[in-house]
């Protein structure tokens, strides 16, 4: 089957970008990774055998690129909120909602990369357990267990930060 690259870009660039941005935490790196993802897609589109859906295949490439990037850079320390996700530094402009957002972002970046990825895929990208298992190449039960651990950990971190 022939795929129109332009329509793939139009349809999936938003989803992929948001996934990458939530994993990486800043706009510039996310754009660079997205570009690499699409270059890879252009190169490999002929080898796509439709054993999985196109969306799953694209996210597999994006996931690999993002994890590679995070492994290489390791730029975010646990206490540091990624640049692109920071809200304004003016406390007057902080609403309760934006504070909550910042808190959740901060907590997300306390998780390990693989834990954060599962949470992002399930909660924010909206994948099913089966799809995540296909993207990551791990059993469905491992996805569930990892998500359970990550959610518990995330809640604990949020409560700790809130507690002061």
């Amino acid at each position, binding site marked *: 089957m022939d795929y129109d*690259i*332009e329509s793939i870009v139009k349809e999936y660039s938003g989803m992929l970008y948001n996934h990458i*941005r939530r994993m990486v935490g800043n706009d510039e790196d*996310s754009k660079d990774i997205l570009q690499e993802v699409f270059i890879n897609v252009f190169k490999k589109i002929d080898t796509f055998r439709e054993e999985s859906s196109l969306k799953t295949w694209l996210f597999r490439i994006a996931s690999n690129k993002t994890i590679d990037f995070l492994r290489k850079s390791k730029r975010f320390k646990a206490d540091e909120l990624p640049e692109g996700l920071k809200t304004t530094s003016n406390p007057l402009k902080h609403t309760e909602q934006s504070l909550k957002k910042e808190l959740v972002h901060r907590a997300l970046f306390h998780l390990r990369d693989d834990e954060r990825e599962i949470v992002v895929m399930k909660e*924010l990208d909206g994948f099913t357990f089966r799809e995540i298992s296909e993207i990551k190449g791990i059993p469905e*039960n491992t996805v569930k267990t990892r998500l359970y651990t990550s959610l518990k950990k995330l809640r604990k971190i949020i409560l700790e930060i809130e507690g002061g």
Partner: protein
Amino acid sequence: MNCLSREQLLELLYREGDNNNLNLYKQHILECKDCLRDFLELVEAREYLKEIEKEKENPVVIVLDKKKRSPWLTKAGLIAATLILVTTVIFSGYQMKRLQLAEKRIAYSNKIIEKKIEEVSLKSEKAAKDNYLLLLGLKNYVDSVVYRKNENTRRVNYERF
């Protein structure tokens, strides 16, 4: 029913799985405080995540070289290329044939020239041979006539001759 496993709690949390099983899990949670607490903690974590769920951005992605060649143009190009190739092959074949004919003609002319040279050389050889025989005859004649005379005279005469 035993307490729910992590996997079962997650299935219930996201409503992914067999409906009958999900109902059983739900019923168990209502009866088991530990499982209920566990489940509510997961729900709480999800509630936090809803804060950032709506944050979505669309990047501007520019696809370079997106110009698609129309299939018609591609077909026309293919036909033109084929025609050029065929014409070139035919023309080179014709030229080759002409070249071969010219070579044959040259070879034939060479043969004729060689033959003529041979004939000429044979003729000149024969003339030389005749001259030689004539000289030999004359020498014999001179020898027979003046043999008995003085040797010196004979030589002089011969050389004069």
